[in-house]
């Protein structure tokens, strides 16, 4: 019997929007045990498990939810962690509404089961508890190098370590975690959670070497020369794209990568930081993805008086995760949809070249758009409305319109094939690149995508690397 109670997800307790818009603490507190068990009870435990097919790494969803219902939370954790190396991360940042929850039968009449929230509950509960020391796998004597410690690398590293491989992860920055650390803000993914996941990896025997830039400090060929049998490249998305409109070099124009890295990795959000960032003022964030939402909400927390999301399509086409859009709106981010920037304006004092205000952003010229015919991907193409130009009064512009692949590995690895856009070419089923023993996955292959799809690619590559090495030493 479907009574009204079971039609909706149990809401997750969270900080009041007005309060949290001014701090960097996590937005949501997560389910309590009581709510988790009630929510688990909504799962119909379908035989054909449509939700599992919606998950890029096929977490056995009904099985773990059944364990939650039985209050066997460690049992639930074991079921998730058997296939996912970052459950506390995925429970927070996956776009569940377009993956597992989209397929949930409950969703046909009412809201789907809150799978993401339950995953988060299980992972947090496990991480908070006393952990039995991880069983260190028996070493098989083979070594694998993993490039990058964002989501795909650690997934691949974890799976291989569990199979007995000696794994070294090389990270270019000073802290492990990749985009989870420099990109996703504290209020959405607390850094202690990433650290816990990194520690779990180390407990499996994985070595992490920071400050090593592959393609510069070491090359792919030099890694092989050190005795590694295979390499996984998960080096991430790369250089930020700019719009190519006048004024993008004025002071106060940031790429989202720069803005977020300053705030997250370099801790510019703290009181009296060593790394500067422009706080306050009026901020326009150009773009409609998760990165744009993160930048907008970060700007708000840094003390901006107004924050706009400037996006050239409408709310329907907004690619960000639904919960992030919802949270951003609640916190006071204003959406300027069907707007397209045409020029950024800067201050110029013609009488005083030394005026310190010279070169700082004073505004952004935009034009209104309407939606035209669908493009080849089925998204309606935005079309300029003639004569609709106007000026948005802003001091800071953050550009969040995607990235292009980083050239460092490609340019120093002979025989590594890349596509027209610079992404590494791989066999989808294995992650195998054009170089023997070299595998790749995540944003370095696909361009900017989600944490979970990168994890999926890391898993696929781990399986293929295991097979490759076994074959190599078979005879």
């Amino acid at each position: 019997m479907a009574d009204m109670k079971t039609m909706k997800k149990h809401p997750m307790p969270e900080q009041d929007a007005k309060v949290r818009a001014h701090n960097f603490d996590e937005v949501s507190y997560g389910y309590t045990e009581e709510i988790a068990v009630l929510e688990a009870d909504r799962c119909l435990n379908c035989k054909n498990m449509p939700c599992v097919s919606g998950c890029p790494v096929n977490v056995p969803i009904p099985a773990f939810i059944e364990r939650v219902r039985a209050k066997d939370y460690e049992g639930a954790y074991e079921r998730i962690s058997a296939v996912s190396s970052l459950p506390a991360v995925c429970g927070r940042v996956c776009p569940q509404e377009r993956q597992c929850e989209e397929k949930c039968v409950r969703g046909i009449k009412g809201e789907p089961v809150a799978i993401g929230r339950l995953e988060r509950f299980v992972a947090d509960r496990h991480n908070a508890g006393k952990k039995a020391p991880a069983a260190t796998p028996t070493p098989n004597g083979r070594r694998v190098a993993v490039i990058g410690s964002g989501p795909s690398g650690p997934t691949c590293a974890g799976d291989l370590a569990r199979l007995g491989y000696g794994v070294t992860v090389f990270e270019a920055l000073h802290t492990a975690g990749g985009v989870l650390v420099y990109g996703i803000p504290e209020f959405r993914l607390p850094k202690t959670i990433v650290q816990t996941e990194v520690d779990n990896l180390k407990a499996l025997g994985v070595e992490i070497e920071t400050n090593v830039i592959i393609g510069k400090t070491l090359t792919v060929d030099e890694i092989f020369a050190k005795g590694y049998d295979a390499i996984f490249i998960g080096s991430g998305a790369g250089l930020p794209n700019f719009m190519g409109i006048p004024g993008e070099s004025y002071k106060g124009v940031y790429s989202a990568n720069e803005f977020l890295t300053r705030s997250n990795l370099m801790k510019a959000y703290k009181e009296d930081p060593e790394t500067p960032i422009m706080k306050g003022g009026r901020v326009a964030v150009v773009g409609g993805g998760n990165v744009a939402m993160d930048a907008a909400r970060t700007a708000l927390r840094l003390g901006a008086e107004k924050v706009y999301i400037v996006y050239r399509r409408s709310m329907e086409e907004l690619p960000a995760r639904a919960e992030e859009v919802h949270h951003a709106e609640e916190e006071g981010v204003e959406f300027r949809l069907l707007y397209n920037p045409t020029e950024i304006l800067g201050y110029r004092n013609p009488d005083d070249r030394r005026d310190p205000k010279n070169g700082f952003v004073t505004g952004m010229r935009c034009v209104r758009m309407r939606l035209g015919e669908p493009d080849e991907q089925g998204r309606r193409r935005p079309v300029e409305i003639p004569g609709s130009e106007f000026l948005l009064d802003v001091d800071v512009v953050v550009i969040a319109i995607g990235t292009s692949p980083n050239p460092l590995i490609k340019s120093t690895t002979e025989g590594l094939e890349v596509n027209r856009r610079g992404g590494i070419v791989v066999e989808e089923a294995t992650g195998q690149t054009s170089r023997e023993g070299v595998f790749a996955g995540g944003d370095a292959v696909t361009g900017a995508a989600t944490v979970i799809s990168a994890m999926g690619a890391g898993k696929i590559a781990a399986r293929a690397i295991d097979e490759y090495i076994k074959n190599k030493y078979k005879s």
Partner: protein
Amino acid sequence: MYRIAKKTVLNPTVTEMWIHAPLVAAKAEPGQFIILRVDEEGERIPLTVAGTDREAGTVRIIFQIVGATTEKLNHKEAGDFIQDFAGPLGVPTVTEGIRRVLIVGGGVGCAIAYPVAKKFHDLGCEVVSVIGFRSKDLVILEDEFRAASDRLFVMTDDGSYGRQGNVCLPLGEMFGAGERFDKVIAIGPLIMMKFVVEATRPTGIPCDVSMNPIMIDGTGMCGGCRLTLCRDGRRVTKFACVDGPDFDGYEVDFDEAMSRGSMYREFEARKREETCNLFKAGK
């Protein structure tokens, strides 16, 4: 953690350090840079490699004390450790096809220009160097430049040492006398490089400059180091960390680079003063 193997004060505001970082030392070439952090809370700053000792596994850096980070770094002594030291980053200076080169260094930029001059010298090229400083007490690396150059001009703005005048003075004289070079390489303050480019332009000699914009990651991720090249009438965005730091000086939009470089000037000055006061209070 990376150990400071050696420290030498070159002048009141410029310090030399050799940092133990074998992986970087094994690879670094003239023209490349490193990124360092002094401590756990510190910012990442780029510094150009001023030399390597591959056997000892050490990398030489020479820095001017301009902000909080360099102030803190300057308070470290030999035997102390710094938190992070990553590299080598950027593209090494191109040496192919050059037999006669004119190296122009300004101020602390000479620390970067010196290994470039030495590289050409070691390759058997004819090297003419012009190094310029504000005054006598700021002169650095003179002996090393002399050893690596076939001819050396030392200039000071106030005439307290060498010849009085800026680096463009001997350039103009040499060009005027019809001297030819395969390339001019200018490394120093933006304004100096801009003037060297303008002085060289009429000769048609290729002129490279070493750009040092604000950077964060230094690995091709944040885009903070972007600069604009004017190429064939179009404006092209480039990233100093992966495309540079050396660029064709004739293409660089120096005015924009100067403007961008001043973005945090106020912050830097305030931070440095705070750090100084902190050290004073500690003494």
